[in-house]
């Protein structure tokens, strides 16, 4: 079907400039003279005035129309908001599998709870239905069904596998990433209907607020995404990895690939032939970050070990998601007890599951890190403050409720990158969360013009969202804080007081691969451990810390490294405070 250029791309006649028409007329005259040199085309001649001049207007309009068609094909122009024919551009973007706003994939995570610790097979066609018309299906990076394995199992490589985590006495959970189409919000706790009910399933609910998948704007944002994703196909280079993740996971808010040779890369090695082996650390963060989850774990109690008093709870810290920070620890039987996760009586030990791939701190905030939690038994009047239970093997234990911060997107991205279809050849890839700078206090001192009001509520919200959303290439800047304060009514920003600590793991101690099992010989284990560095900072320059393990290559190496490309911030809204200074 022909396109009516006069109504879609032609400019109004009045918009065609005299200079443009004069230029076109001159070119047409030169062109015609090749065939008709004797034809009088001058102004005042019948052909010149009655044919050539009106034709010059038509050709000028047509040339402008062609320019506009070419502009609609140039996605840079479309991404900047210059669109002449929306219908054409919409159809054009579909060639790049970029869909209309209403059907762009939504994504989220569903937590399934089972009453028995067993193996379950979820058919690939399993569907989750929210609100009667919002259909989701499992995000499966590998062929075949989703296999859910009992607690403590080792998932098979190149298969869709997940391992149950014990949530309660008869309660076992697993988090399943899903994708689908949705135009309405799906919130935490929303319960879907399942097309097929697995055995022993007791509940299914949304773990996080789902990302709707809609772009903030229509064609302009779609074109921007197309330009960013069209030219990449591979995870094996920086740009390709970034665009692959952004295309597959639109809910990712920050993606920072670190390659061999970058300052933030310490994992790369040189083989005996002296050839550097390719490594890629993929730091990711989602819009759901930081997500707070709560989980109950069992810790065995050891009054003695190796003939000496110990009086500690020790156990593997197995949580549904990789923890970025432990917020609270509560003994289920003694909820009023103050168990401070950062206190001296609580220690977290970490050991890399694969020392060659992810040694020590390199495994931090990734699925490669195995964690143990140890808690000193608190005593009140010389009596243990936490009641102990006894299992069938005579082992004493207690249950603890752990509230922790995580990013539910980390697991799905890791599974996708490690799948056979996407795993880059010859590149050792590790998916992990950004190195966390936890901000404990963020106080802004400011002045205000007399008679004006400052919208501190709005400023706090904006500063919180700004800090929470940062991740390379979006780097922290004091001036952004200043802008936020200025636009909320402040006259002058005097000072930013920023106190916090940077950590490469939730762990306090890194266990070497040959360390003793802490549940058999805790003292020997700790003796073998090396301390996990933590850097305190007292001003906002700490938010742009650069640090490289000075012990690298020695027996005390921890592989801690941080720079602007792999740092992100953990902050609670309540830590943002304001202090007005009076002149």
């Amino acid at each position: 079907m022909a396109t009516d250029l006069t109504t879609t791309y032609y400019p109004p006649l009045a918009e065609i400039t005299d200079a443009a028409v004069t230029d076109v007329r001159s070119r047409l005259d030169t062109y015609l003279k090749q065939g008709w040199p004797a034809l009088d085309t001058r102004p005042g001649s019948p052909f010149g005035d009655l044919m050539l001049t009106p034709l010059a207007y038509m050709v000028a309009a047509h040339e402008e129309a062609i320019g506009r068609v070419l502009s609609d094909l140039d996605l840079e122009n479309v991404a900047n908001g210059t669109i002449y024919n929306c219908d054409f551009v919409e159809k054009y973007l579909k060639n790049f599998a970029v869909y209309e706003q209403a059907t762009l994939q939504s994504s989220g995570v569903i937590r399934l709870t089972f009453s028995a610790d067993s193996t379950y097979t979820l058919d690939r066609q399993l569907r989750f239905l929210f609100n009667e018309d919002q259909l989701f299906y499992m995000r499966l990076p590998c062929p075949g069904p989703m296999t859910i394995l009992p607690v403590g199992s080792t998932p098979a490589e190149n298969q869709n596998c997940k391992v149950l985590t014990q949530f309660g006495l008869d309660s076992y959970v697993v988090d399943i990433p899903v994708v689908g189409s949705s135009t309405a919000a799906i919130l935490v706790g929303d319960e879907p209907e399942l097309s097929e009910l697995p055995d022993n399933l007791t509940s299914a609910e949304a773990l996080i607020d789902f990302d709707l998948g809609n772009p903030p704007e229509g064609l302009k944002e779609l074109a921007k995404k197309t330009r960013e994703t069209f030219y990449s196909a591979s995870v094996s280079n920086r740009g390709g990895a970034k665009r692959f993740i952004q295309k597959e996971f639109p809910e990712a808010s920050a993606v920072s690939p670190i390659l061999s040779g970058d300052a933030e890369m310490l994992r790369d090695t040189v083989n005996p032939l002296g050839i550097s082996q390719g490594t890629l650390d993929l730091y990711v963060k989602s819009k759901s970050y930081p997500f707070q989850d709560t989980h109950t774990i069992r810790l065995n109690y050891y009054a003695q070990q190796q003939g000496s008093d110990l009086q500690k709870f020790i156990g593997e810290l197995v949580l549904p998601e990789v923890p970025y920070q432990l917020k609270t620890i509560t003994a289920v039987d003694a909820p009023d007890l103050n168990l401070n996760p950062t206190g001296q009586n609580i220690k977290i030990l970490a050991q890399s599951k694969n020392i060659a791939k992810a040694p020590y701190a390199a495994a931090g905030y990734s699925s490669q890190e195995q964690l143990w939690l140890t808690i000193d038994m608190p005593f009140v009047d010389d009596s243990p403050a936490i009641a102990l239970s006894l299992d069938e093997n005579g082992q004493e234990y207690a249950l603890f409720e752990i509230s922790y911060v995580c990013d539910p997107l980390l697991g799905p991205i890791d599974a996708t990158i490690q799948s056979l279809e996407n795993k880059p050849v010859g590149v050792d890839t590790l998916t992990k969360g950004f190195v966390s700078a936890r901000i404990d206090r963020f106080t802004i001192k400011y002045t205000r013009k007399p008679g004006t009001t400052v919208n501190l509520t709005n400023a706090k919200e904006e500063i919180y969202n700004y800090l929470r959303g940062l991740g390379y290439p979006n780097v922290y800047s004091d001036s952004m804080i200043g802008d936020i304060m200025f636009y909320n009514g402040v006259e002058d920003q005097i000072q930013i007081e920023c106190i916090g600590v940077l950590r490469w793991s939730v762990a306090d101690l890194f266990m070497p691969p040959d360390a003793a099992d802490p549940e058999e010989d805790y003292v020997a284990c700790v003796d073998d451990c090396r301390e996990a560095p933590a850097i305190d900072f007292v001003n906002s320059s700490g938010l742009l810390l650069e640090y490289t393990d000075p012990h690298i290559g020695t027996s005390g190496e921890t592989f801690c490294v941080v720079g602007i490309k792999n740092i992100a911030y953990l902050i609670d809204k309540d830590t943002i405070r304001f202090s007005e200074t009076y002149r």
Partner: protein
Amino acid sequence: MKSVKLSFEEKGVQFDFSAPVEDFANEVQTAMVNIATSKGSDPINPDKGTDLLKEAVAGRLINIRSAEHFANFAALDTLFLFRQFEDTNDQNRLAKVTLKPVEFAAGKLTLDAQFTSASNEVIGVLSNITDNA
């Protein structure tokens, strides 16, 4: 050069498709059209036309001497316009334009027009008016 022939008649200008107008006759036809065209009426050719009609409508042609004055300007404007497009090797190019008022009555000005080519071909006649006063 050649063009569609225009027939200048009492009731107006008519297209005559019986035969084209060529060479110097074509130049004369275009020149006559230009003399009667108001300058500025063509936005992409600001030099096209003359001010003769505009001045007449504005009432500045108060007598035959002023009519002669504006007629001379019209002739020069036409010649200068043609110079912008002429081929200096073309012997049929316009070399001289003469406009002479011969009758000036209320509401009407009659002009004699004579056009001379580079090869001295002349089209048009100039009347001789005798003042018997």
